[in-house]
């Protein structure tokens, strides 16, 4: 199974490393060369230097026969465009896109893009943590 991870920052690099451990053949794409260091000294997957909006970069990274594409650059709009290109131009059936803005994530989810919104997830987790606190009424310590 081949996976393409576009955007190799904190999130992308962790996904690339984990998929690699799980036996996927992974290629990471990032426009900065430093991103490669996030993958560690023993990275034996692929790495393509370039921008994910560039069709040639996507081809070089093997988008045409990738089984899964994870789009996680630091720009929501960049991710939206790359995700749609992967889905509609290269007909990839498994495209997952990270979007920080819940509103755009919802709109593009309705349009058939598989979006994941860490902001919404964080809000839920934080709310649950607050609800889980055992709040005791303030005791009258002064007495």
């Amino acid at each position, binding site marked *: 199974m081949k996976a393409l991870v576009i955007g190799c920052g904190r999130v992308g690099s962790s996904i690339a490393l984990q998929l690699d451990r799980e036996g996927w053949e992974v290629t990471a794409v990032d426009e900065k060369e430093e991103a490669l260091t996030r993958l560690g000294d023993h990275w034996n997957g692929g790495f393509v230097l370039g921008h994910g*909006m560039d*069709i040639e970069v996507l081809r070089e990274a093997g988008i045409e026969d990738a089984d899964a594409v994870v789009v996680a650059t630091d*720009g*929501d*709009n960049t991710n939206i*465009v790359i995700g*749609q290109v992967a889905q509609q*131009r290269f007909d990839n059936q498994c495209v997952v896109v990270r979007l920080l803005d819940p*509103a755009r994530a919802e709109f593009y989810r309705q*349009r058939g893009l598989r979006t994941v919104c860490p902001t919404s997830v964080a809000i839920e987790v934080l709310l649950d943590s607050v609800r889980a606190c055992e709040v005791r009424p303030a005791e009258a310590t002064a007495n």
Partner: protein
Amino acid sequence: MYILIAGGGKVGANFARTLLHDGRHEVTLIEQRRDRYERLEQELEHHVLLGDATEIHILERAGIARPPDVVAALTGDDEDNLVISQLSREKYGVPKVIARVNDPRNQAHFDLLGISPTVSATRGLMALIEHEVPEHDLVHLLELRKENLEIVEVVIDEAAPAAGRRVESLDLPEGSRLISIMRNGHAEIAVGATELHPGDQVLAILQPGKEDELRRVLLKA
């Protein structure tokens, strides 16, 4: 008309200025950089709004839900222009959306996602530069994407098969026509009896796929 403009750089700001000067339109310009916004606000006052035009709440504050008659996505980022166009058209039903393409290599993304019409200053400039550089045998002067037509210029040289022949005797590809001949600084409309001479600059209109055929008839044996 209500016209919403995203991006207050040179293109967006001048477009807003022209429309406001016209006096017949209601205009809102969205700019996300504070320094630019402040400068524009002094000039265009309440017609400028500070914010990221790819954020839905900013678009809504600018009245996207009315919706505007026209949205012009003119920022310096192609991905932003694409998202603004998709939101405008598909979420709010804006009847006319015009998108700027900064990098001509991104044109394919706009086409793929059905964003049309698009305008590209870079592409237009490239055509003008090619026009001045003699190395190009066929220069694209104007692309009419919606009409699926383009206007090109070719220069007839000594060895060209068309040199010395009348327009009516040329076997021009279907879907193409010669418009005019420029010779010694004078332009004339090309008619059937017009004879082509070496050195003539010929303007032609054609469907984009017919370039090679046109080249063969006019330029190469």
